[in-house]
């Protein structure tokens, strides 16, 4: 068995700090977008009763034309992009450290996340 000391974890690494900043501010931004969309929806959109919930999905693309929906969509997409954005930062982090294996794995994971958009060919 190899006697190898673990690679030193540098908590002050700029990429790691960028990751923390992305998480903190990215989630706050997403939350406020969703909250704003919700407020707009509450004030301006036609009311929906609990009894209409079972058929709520029937509107399809038209659901997103409801006032406030576009702002909520922006919040949700920013949330997903923040999550995927972590992989861009980890790619940079490992490239700077000279770790090609993990920078490639980060890119591959990012490709997998973004490839889920291909489901659009099965939907709408």
């Amino acid at each position, binding site marked *: *068995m*190899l006697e*190898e000391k*673990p690679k030193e*974890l540098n908590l002050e690494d700029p990429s*790691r700090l960028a*990751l*923390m900043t992305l*998480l*903190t501010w*990215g*989630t706050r931004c*997403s*939350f406020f977008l*969703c*909250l704003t*969309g*919700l407020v707009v*929806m*509450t004030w301006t959109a036609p009311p*929906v*009763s*609990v009894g209409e*919930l*079972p058929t*709520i*999905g029937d509107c*399809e*693309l038209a*659901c*997103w034309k*409801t006032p*406030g*929906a576009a702002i*909520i969509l922006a*919040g*949700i997409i920013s*949330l*997903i992009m*923040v*999550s*995927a954005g*972590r992989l861009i930062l*980890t790619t940079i*982090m490992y490239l700077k450290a000279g770790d090609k294996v*993990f920078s490639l*794995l980060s890119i*591959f*994971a990012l490709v*997998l*996340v*973004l*490839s*889920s*958009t291909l*489901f*659009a060919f*099965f*939907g*709408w």
Partner: protein
Amino acid sequence: MEVLLILVLVSFAAGFIGVLTGVGGGIILIPVMVGILDIPVHLAIAASLVSVTANSLSGGSQFLRTGSVNIRLAILMSISALIATLVGVLLSKVVGGRVVTAIFALMILLTIWVMFKGRKDSFVDVKDSDPLALKLRLPSWYIPSTDGLKVEYGVLKVVPAIGIMAFAGLSAGLLGVGGGFIQVPVMDRVLKLPIKVSTATSNFMMGLSAAAAALAYLALGDLHPLIAGPTVVGIFLGSRVGAGVAPRIHSKHLRWLFLGLLLVMCAQMIVKVILWK
């Protein structure tokens, strides 16, 4: 609008209880949305995935600060989880709502079992690590408490763990949950990581699987703004309040209450499957 308020309150409760009990919000949210509010299961799953992503990201910064996240391990495990997530989304559209609801009921039972078994913190020394773990430089250190002292830990059985992690990804895509109920026990008992590292690393991974699945459901047209919007807001607020209140609550009593609640929800899902129309 009463519907928005109900959804915010339900999500708030899910986020609050989720933080206190260590179980994800999706396990509470989806049974309530499907069983009580009668929201179509795929819309509930899509909304839950967005909330799991939000929850994962909001706690992520703190975990990074203490070095609790083993990022290398998270990325490595995420590859199999992400592939399985995409398969899970595809499966959920193929098998239909009734089968998904039935599988969800079984998953609640599994969660109850995992919670019953509990956890004990035991981890391996760096020098006892798996050869592959050493080659990939997976062993690391973290700071478990406020005294700032670093504790080193090793990593065992990497290959079996990669395989099992695929089930966590599958649960995210198929059922709309984070998969933490699989990830944390695997990291704890197979990889032999410290509990805090298991939780933090699972949190990092969960955000990726949930984001991929949420994007897939958005592309499929199953993400509804009226349901997803209030869910994100409610979960975010609930988990923040829960995290603040947690130190003052005896989690043991809450755990038993929550287990009872899970049993009721499981029964509700089973009734829904039987009476499916």
